[in-house]
């Protein structure tokens, strides 16, 4: 028994003396609870919507006010044509548009029924569903209030149209998310490990003392993973199209080009991490903590970003996969072209340039 206890004591000492790991062991659960408890939620609120009111009568305005006042919705724009709606969706500014036909109230009074059209961006089918349900319940409430003192009830029907993903397939939002995740994993983690392994094994010493320029060492490390990633991308796309039934609506070449760009961004991150890490274990750990998890949480494919508290929304802007997710969705699901994604592309290009620049600048040409 004594032997057992002394062994336990020894193990305790080991843990206690490794401050860094201890810190993570204690604080990580705290951070997780706070994140999951407060910040990350599937609950939909403050979703951006637009209203196209072709009637502008008492009824339509009353419903519009209710909707705008609701905490689920955030009215960003009043649009004045279907074309406008299309453009606004393409710009990714809204998740749903509400369309009141002309003579809304008149129809209601004279025929006891009217229709409202709800158009939702179903590239994220869950959110789309939730939003249309919320909207419908608000409309129903209004309908109830009208029917209070009526003999013949009024009915307001909501006609729902799911854009981009009429069958509300979960895979539509899932596939782009997985692409971002896989590329991040393969490129960042594997590249950083590959570079650090060289340091750990001692071969880095030998190749530093050679005519080989450090910059070339980095690129040479990254290139194989670039190819592996391309293979991965193609595999994922093939599976998506033929097995999951997710179409590639937009240009395939643009898709590949953007994916390649994101791959390079991830590789640069991997290189940056490897500069600081001394062991493969810490490289892997840093990759997981600082990239894999944020990608999962902040790219927008599991938890819509607009549902997060403001500070987290700001943080999500720094996560490259957030921008990539938007780009992929726009091209693959919404069939949009370069014109729609050039801003996000530029952001990714900027991030890549900065990351590569820092990594190369900070690459250790000496051991210490």
């Amino acid at each position: 028994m004594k032997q057992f206890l002394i062994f336990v004591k020894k193990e305790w000492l080991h843990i206690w003396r490794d401050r860094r790991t201890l810190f993570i062991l204690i604080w990580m659960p705290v951070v997780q609870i706070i994140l999951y408890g407060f910040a990350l939620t599937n609950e939909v609120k403050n979703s951006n919507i637009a209203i196209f009111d072709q009637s502008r009568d008492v009824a339509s305005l009353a419903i519009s006010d209710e909707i705008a006042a609701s905490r689920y919705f955030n009215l960003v724009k009043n649009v004045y044509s279907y074309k406008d709606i299309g453009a606004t969706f393409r710009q990714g500014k809204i998740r749903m548009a509400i369309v009141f036909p002309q003579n809304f109230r008149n129809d209601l009074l004279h025929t006891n029924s009217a229709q409202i059209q709800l158009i939702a961006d179903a590239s994220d089918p869950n959110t789309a569903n939730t939003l249309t349900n919320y909207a419908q319940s608000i409309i129903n409430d209004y309908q109830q209030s009208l029917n209070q003192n009526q003999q013949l009830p009024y009915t307001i029907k909501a006609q729902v149209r799911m854009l981009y993903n009429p069958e509300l397939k979960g895979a539509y939002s899932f596939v782009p998310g997985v692409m971002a995740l896989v590329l991040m994993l393969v490129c960042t983690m594997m590249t950083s490990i590959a570079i650090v392994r060289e340091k750990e094994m001692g071969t880095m010493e030998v190749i530093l003392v050679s005519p080989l320029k450090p910059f070339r060492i980095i690129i040479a490390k990254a290139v194989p993973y670039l190819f592996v990633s391309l293979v991965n991308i193609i595999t994922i796309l093939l599976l998506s199209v033929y097995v999951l039934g997710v179409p590639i609506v937009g240009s395939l070449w643009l898709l590949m080009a953007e994916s390649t760009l994101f791959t390079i961004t991830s590789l640069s991150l991997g290189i940056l991490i490897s500069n600081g890490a001394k062991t493969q274990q810490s490289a892997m750990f840093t990759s997981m903590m600082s990239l894999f998890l944020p990608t999962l949480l902040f790219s927008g494919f599991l938890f819509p970003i607009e549902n997060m508290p403001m500070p987290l929304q700001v943080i999500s802007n720094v996560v490259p996969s957030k921008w990539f997710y938007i780009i992929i969705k726009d091209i693959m699901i919404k069939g949009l072209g370069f014109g729609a994604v050039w801003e996000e592309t530029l952001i990714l290009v900027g991030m890549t340039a900065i990351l590569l620049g820092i990594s190369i600048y900070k690459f250790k040409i000496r051991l210490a």
Partner: protein
Amino acid sequence: MQPVVVENIVQNYSTKKTVVEALKGISFTVDRGEIFGIIGPDGAGKTSLFRILTTLLLAESGKATVDGFDVVTDYKQIRNRIGYMPGRFSLYQDLSVEENLQFFATIFNTSIQQNYELIKDIYQQIEPFKDRKAGALSGGMKQKLALCCALIHKPSVLFLDEPTTGVDAVSRKEFWEMLHRLKEQQITILVSTAYMDEASLCDRVALIQKGELLSVDTPKNIIGQFKKPLWAIRADEMYKLMNDIAADPAVESCYPFGQYHHVVFKTQEKRRQTLEEIAKGGDHANVEIKPIEPNIEDCFMALMKD
């Protein structure tokens, strides 16, 4: 111009609480075509010194040049022209013998064929295994491969950091024979080792301990500077003998050296009689006493004490 010049190199590193002086102001030069040995135990500063000279580490202060190039400002030129074999095995375990050699030849802008003559002697011994993964080789074979990879670009100076550590006695001997054959090619060789007996295989040596040079000279001269007469003594009960001798006030040191103990007295007089007395006083049987010439280890130990 001398291939390696070291002036007052100081190197520190800090752990959590203290600053350790790894090198406390080292100076020496190496002549062309020499085999220059850096002899000292673990922690003496050998690896730090090598890393500074191969431009992998910056010294706190001091200056060093290799082939006339400064290790700090001209590191690129140095890296193009030296051969380096660091302490532990540092080749690619999952590449074959030939793949490793080809890799190193190529990054030095040359090919195996170009300088084959230079490594032929050594490579021929491992050539039968050229498709075997480097990780599957024995210690001695790995060493030979590492040497080939360091030589393949015909370096002007070769830095070998403890190449014989952990290798069996036979391979060690063969390795030094290979180094001597390389001398004929006018390659300057700096080699570090913790094995004192390897000092006699070098042209000149620097004895290093705790970051300081105890002596820099030919092995012969170092031995020549050992002024005090050295005695070897043995008897049946070696441990008791050692304690008895060490207890005598006239004795400076008594250390076991295999079959004999080596005894140094505090003063220069020859002390056969003193030893005989101690042996008799301790009732020792089968006593044998003789004067001997010191070896490098005797000198190192004496210098360590000063």
